[in-house]
């Protein structure tokens, strides 16, 4: 594949054809805020926190999806681009609970001087979490409708199509078909939606309980890479332990067998190792 050369903030960058502006920025050690961009997913293009300015384009463009052209001139740090990203982060953080978004995003908020308190009155915070089983929790007060769970459940990974976005405006929410309860829906409880959720709106039950109780402490956790104990496909698992107890099981998104995905047994079926009658 041919290489393309572009200019980013005055510097020359060369990337393979097909790269996005975000890829190009990251290839030279830079970065931009993202939320809806998942490394294993096609860009959903909905959160708008990664906007940059491209010379010759009237509107700002989303860097996570805009593919690089030869000779393109990109500005990531103009007042216009920064202002756009700042306001979008403020709007998102004022309308949903972003407390559990990863640390990198908090750093972006700080870096941009984003102040969510400038916007009040329109929020989904306070919506009760849906805790309906022992496997995972849907804490939709934290949901920013980034579509990552929808895409993972749909054609890009799981192909189960159990969920999508329903409703409009502040009524927009992640819904099963006809809004039926999860056990009556097409959901197969693979938890591949949890794996891609950037905000903690979807979380394993144990992790969510511990976070609610304030006992989840990433600094006291260890991660051990191993292989699932069930069928013979060889899915890699990361066992997260805290003080000698398993608190979560995930799969590495850079592993070519799983791309971070698992089935219900792999993600949730490990409690036999801590079974009391073992």
């Amino acid at each position, binding site marked *: 594949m041919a290489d393309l050369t572009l200019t980013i903030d005055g510097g020359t960058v060369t990337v393979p054809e097909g790269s996005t502006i975000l890829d190009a920025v990251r290839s030279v050690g830079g970065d931009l805020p993202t939320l809806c961009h998942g490394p294993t997913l096609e860009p959903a293009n909905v959160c708008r926190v990664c906007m940059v300015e491209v010379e010759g384009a009237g509107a700002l463009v989303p860097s996570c999806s805009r593919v690089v052209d030869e000779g393109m001139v990109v500005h990531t740090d103009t007042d216009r681009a920064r202002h756009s990203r700042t306001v979008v982060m403020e709007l998102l953080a004022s309308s949903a609970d972003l407390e559990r978004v990863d640390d990198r995003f908090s750093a972006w908020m700080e870096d941009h001087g984003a102040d969510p308190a400038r916007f009040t009155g329109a929020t989904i915070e306070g919506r009760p979490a849906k805790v309906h089983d022992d496997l995972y929790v849907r804490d939709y007060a934290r949901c920013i409708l980034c579509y990552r769970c929808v895409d993972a459940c749909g054609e890009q990974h799981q192909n189960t199509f159990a969920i999508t976005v329903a409703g409009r405006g502040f009524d927009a929410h992640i819904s099963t078909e006809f809004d039926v309860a999860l056990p009556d829906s097409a959901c*197969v*409880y693979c938890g591949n939606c949890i794996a891609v959720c950037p905000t903690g709106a979807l979380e394993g039950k144990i992790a969510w309980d511990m976070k609610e109780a304030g006992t989840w402490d990433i600094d006291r956790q260890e991660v051990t890479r191993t292989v*699932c104990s069930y069928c013979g496909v060889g*899915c890699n698992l990361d*066992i997260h332990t805290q003080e000698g107890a*398993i608190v979560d099981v995930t799969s590495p998104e850079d592993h*070519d067998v799983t791309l971070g995905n698992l089935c219900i047994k792999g993600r949730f079926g490990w409690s036999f190792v801590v079974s009391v009658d*073992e």
Partner: protein
Amino acid sequence: MFGAGGGTSSYAEIEETDVILMWGSNAREAHPIFFHHVLKGVHNGARLFAIDPRRTATASWADLWLGIDVGSDIALANAVGRHIIEEGLHRTDFIDAATTGFDAYAEAVDRYTLEHAARITGVPASAIAELATAYATAGTAQLCWTLGITEHHNGTENVHALIDLALLTGHVGRWGSGLVPIRGQNNVQGGGDMGALPNKLPGFQDVEDDTIRSRFESAWDAAIPTRSGKHISLMNEAMDEGEIRCLYVLGENPMQSEADGSAMARRLEGLDFMVAQDIFLTRTAELADVVLPAAGWGETEGTVTSSERRVQRSRKAIDPPGSARDDIDILAGLARALGHDWDDRPAKDHWDELRLLSPMHAGMSYDRLEAEGGLQWPCPDEAHPGTPFLHGRLWDRPLTSKRAPFVATEFVPPVDELDHDYPIRLTTGRRLDSYNTGVQSGKYSSPRRIGGSIDLSSTDASNLGVEEGDTVRVISRRGEISAPVRIDPTLRAGLAFMSIHFPDDTDVNQLTIDAWDPKAGTAEFKATAVRVEA
């Protein structure tokens, strides 16, 4: 196949192939992440054929579902082969250069006309022809199977019938074309690799070969029996005849996993002495004289091998509970008690010893397994990248290695015949959220778990006058159980299904037959004749 027991292909190949056959495999439920790769292939334009008695979740993704009658796979495969030959779609260049036995194969399949096979299998002749044409004319094709092929009295012959199709069309030994038995347990492949087979030493080396055996004997400083041991079905016979009086069971639950469960219970109860080494007090362990509590998943170090022959590291994350010990530690302790002072060695040292003795694993150091996310055998030295697909040698011209043999097979119906008293064909399988006899999977709470049931077609249920949830008696020539009815739209009239996961409630192996394949020793779990009484 053709020597080493493993699938030929990598999962990545199925994403790029033109035609996918899922034969006797409900991978959507039994191997969900493998099926992710299948679905990528489908989205990339591959045609998917599902050959299965049930219209499974896998079949619902297929371009064409061939609803075959249980146990008639050879008739279908032979008709596919015959049709390919008749239409002149076979790869004569490949057959001439790289195979043997084609003429005998062609003669053997000649009587399996489309019409004859349609009568045996219940699959319309046009569907058989469509499958044959699609497979033979595809640029690349992957033929995948699981226990729907192997859990029959003639499972090995079933596999040969499928291999023959790959040889006929040249769909083996090339990127995108291969034969893919998807393994049901996380290390059933690795168990075979390590020589946990009655006739093999590690690396699929023949125990009856004097040269090979002497290499192991000098490395181990011990004599190895010169003859192959017994597979499970021969062991069962030997227990029946009183030849085997003592049994050491590691990580297996034969009380509930073996066909014809009441016969198995009599066998185990009749032993002089039994040791069970397991992570739980299984029904088998309950019968044992000595139980050795073993450490389980997440509690031990080692390796496992997946269905694409990829050896990967498994690691310890937590300490085992109570007095449970690592399997290696238990075996070393046992050896010591028997007068052999084995060193206390970590798993890595045992692996390095294996690398000295098994050429296909020689290049797989722990460091490489770690750095490269696993390696696919054969990997004969540390500079070797591993082998994404097998049998590329069959395309070397001139061929410098052994030719691949066609093996002619004949359709022989399931041993447990249907008749007036036992008119319904019962088959078995897995469900998505559960696993084998439920020892592991029964411990987590799945919102989708539906428990044990006898699944019937709506036609059979209405003929019997039963409804969903009614408890019925299911009776075979060997036993009888009661189970709640579940109406299953994936079943045709005359076909019933039970999962294997709930032996405490619905012990399907009270019904199954222990007729077994003479080569593999696998019992015919998939074909039981039953009647259902309200």
